[in-house]
């Protein structure tokens, strides 16, 4: 009996360890094979380079997600590049590099004063699509993004409908001097100009950084203590403004913002942010690739593609733009 048990135990030990041993060997082998099995570089595959304004910004990541999803469905390869911090010069250099690496298409923000690069790309047969921000250009094939003029008006309307102050002193944080930002600002200013009780005290750039937005808020409030409403024109501005207000313990100042990034929604339900004009970066990304697909296939396409924005407030009623 004991003999049987010992024999059995030994056999089981040997067989199980043999099994594990062999399975490990097989796994190692397959892993190594996988490592060595590198995909063939297929030059026929269409290659798209997407240049972000800021590589790790949530807005741009969403946009990339939409674009890459759509690119995958068409069988395009999408490369996502961009500066680590918002930097127009670097963005320009990246555009140069992208042109030098001869993709089939480039999706980028419209860059102020870089028409020459767009032309160069066109010369080299690279289709350029601008997203998020457009520039007046003959060389880019299309624009996909928010209608920023409408978005600016939408924000103004939201402010008028939700503010019940007698005298409104507005402090504005603008993401950058990019066209999309300035379009929003001008549209909003225009819409508010008719209303005498609203006066825009100051406009300062955050360089699409949450930290800078907070700093600017503090600086503005120190300079103009009468400010009783803040508006952030780019995605992270509203959150940055709240940070600044928190550091000054002025939680009662209402804030308006753009997009629904980070904890914007939570701040809205807390009542800190009155409302936000939400763009749909996922859809922008998707649509950009769609337009590109039309173009690459030689099919007709629309030059100006506007993606709607929604209004996000504590009532959670999403009012769709147009």
């Amino acid at each position, binding site marked *: 009996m004991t003999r049987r048990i010992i024999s059995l135990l030994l056999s089981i030990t040997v067989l199980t360890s043999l099994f594990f041993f062999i399975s490990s060997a097989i796994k190692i082998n397959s*892993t190594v094979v996988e490592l060595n099995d590198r995909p063939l570089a297929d030059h026929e595959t269409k290659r798209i380079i997407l240049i972000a304004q800021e590589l790790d910004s949530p807005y741009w990541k969403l946009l990339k997600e939409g674009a890459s999803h759509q690119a995958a469905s068409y069988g395009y390869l999408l490369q996502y590049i961009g500066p680590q911090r918002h930097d127009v010069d670097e963005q320009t250099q990246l555009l140069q590099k992208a042109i030098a690496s001869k993709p089939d298409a480039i999706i980028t923000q419209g860059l102020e004063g870089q028409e020459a690069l767009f032309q160069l790309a066109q010369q080299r047969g690279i289709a350029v699509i601008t997203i998020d921000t457009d520039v007046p250009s003959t060389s880019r094939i299309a624009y996909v993004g928010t209608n920023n003029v409408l978005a600016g008006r939408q924000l103004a309307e939201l402010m008028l409908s939700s503010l019940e102050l007698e005298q409104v002193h507005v402090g504005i944080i603008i993401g950058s001097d990019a066209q999309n930002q300035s379009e929003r600002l001008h549209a909003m200013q225009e819409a508010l100009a008719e209303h005498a009780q609203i006066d825009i005290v100051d406009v300062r750039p955050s360089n699409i950084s949450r930290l800078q937005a907070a700093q600017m808020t503090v600086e503005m409030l120190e300079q103009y203590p009468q400010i009783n409403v803040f508006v952030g024109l780019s995605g992270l501005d509203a959150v940055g403004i709240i940070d600044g207000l928190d550091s000054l313990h002025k939680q009662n100042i209402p804030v308006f913002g753009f997009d629904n990034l980070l904890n914007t929604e939570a701040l809205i339900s807390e009542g800190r942010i009155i409302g936000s004009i939400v763009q749909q970066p996922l859809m922008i990304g998707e649509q950009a690739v769609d337009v590109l697909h039309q173009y690459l296939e030689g099919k007709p396409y629309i030059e100006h593609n506007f993606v709607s924005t929604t209004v996000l407030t504590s009532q959670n009623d999403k009012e769709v733009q147009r």
Partner: protein
Amino acid sequence: MKIRSLLFIIIPLLFIINGSISLLLFSSSQQVNESYSQLQERLLVYERLNEHVQNNIQLADQWLSTQSMDVYLALQEGSKQSNQQLQQLKAYGPPPNGLVDALSYYALIESYQQLEQLFVTSSIHNTLLYSSYLDEAELLSPHITEDSYHMISLELGAYEQRSAEILQEMYAMRLSGITLLVGVTLLCLWLAYFISSSITKPIHELVQTAERIAQGNLDQPVAQYAKQSDFYRLGAAFKKMQKQLKRYIAQEKETLEKDKQLKEMELEVLKNQINPHFLFNSLNVMSKLALIEGAERTSDLTVAMANLLRYNLKQLDTPVPLRDEVKHANDYFYIQQARYRDRVKFQTDVDESQLDTTVPVLTLQPLLENIFVHGIEQLERDAVITLRIYGNNEFTWITIQDNGVGMNEQTKAQLLDYEQRPSAAAQTHHQSTGLGTRNVFRRLQLLYGNQHEVKIDSVEDEGTSITLRIPRHKEV
């Protein structure tokens, strides 16, 4: 299983297992090492390519200022090198996590190389064109460096992802390999023990059996082994040997018995070899001589003596009719009368019809002899011996009576105790006392079994009567 085939299977099996363990371990680590060295090679190529690009731009700058032929050649060489490296990279293929990055990278390098080709081929004298190309190339060079490192980091990333898995598997493999090795070693030891005991145990058993047989215990059971075992035949042979041994011993015993009987017979034959004819002839001569000399009684006595002798020489087991026995008894008495004369008288009362009953030869003579020797020797006169024969259809009774000294109870008991062979001690002690009588009784017993009967009536100083009952027809 036969030990030989067991060993033939197990030893190579263990070798194969051990060999394959080593082979697998070796080949796995070899594979891992190879993939690692391939990675290193790729990284090195990225690095070199970048270096060449940067170096070439410097060289191109130098050429613009020095216009030295050496620099030009170096530039051409560098250009060729970087082209080779690009082809090499393309041959490696892009890393799985950076397909598009790799394609862009290749395209970037190619753009640079085109520029390089342009300024290498463009005339040095056309300085303006040359420097414009160079400027453009210089613009690209930081991107190339950047992308080279990006590619390296992608390669490393791709490898790192997998290398953690590989390391883990290698660890698991080493662990299971050690377990396997220990397990196989233990299994070997166990098998060695098992095989050796499968050899020594039956041997031990057989040795024990052999020892018992040597001690004379032939009925010792021999252990049975499985038919495939080597010990099956050994055990079977052992069993056969045991059986044969038993048979030989039985045969030997039989032979000994036969020898003994043969010797006894030989002795018998020797005894009988005294030539009886010589004695008869002598006795006949004596009888004739006595007749010639006128001694008629002597002649008659001699004839009776010859008859007696002839009768006595018959085979002891020969059955004879009772008539012959009676005649022989008369002859015997006649001879004895020559000695005892008138002191003894022989009376017969015989039923003639019973005389056909067969009895063993010499049944009556020893009884008469006994009477003469022990019963009536001391009687001065008037000794009477009576022989009475009577019977019915079943049995014949023979009674011999005398009026001699009789016998005591002890002698009587001794005579009647004929069923056993007389012990040697008894024989020497009583000498021939009653030996003939007892022999008669014993022969009757052997011949007739329960059907015979012996009765002795004796009163001391008054006489003895011995009665024998014999079946008329011997039952077969």
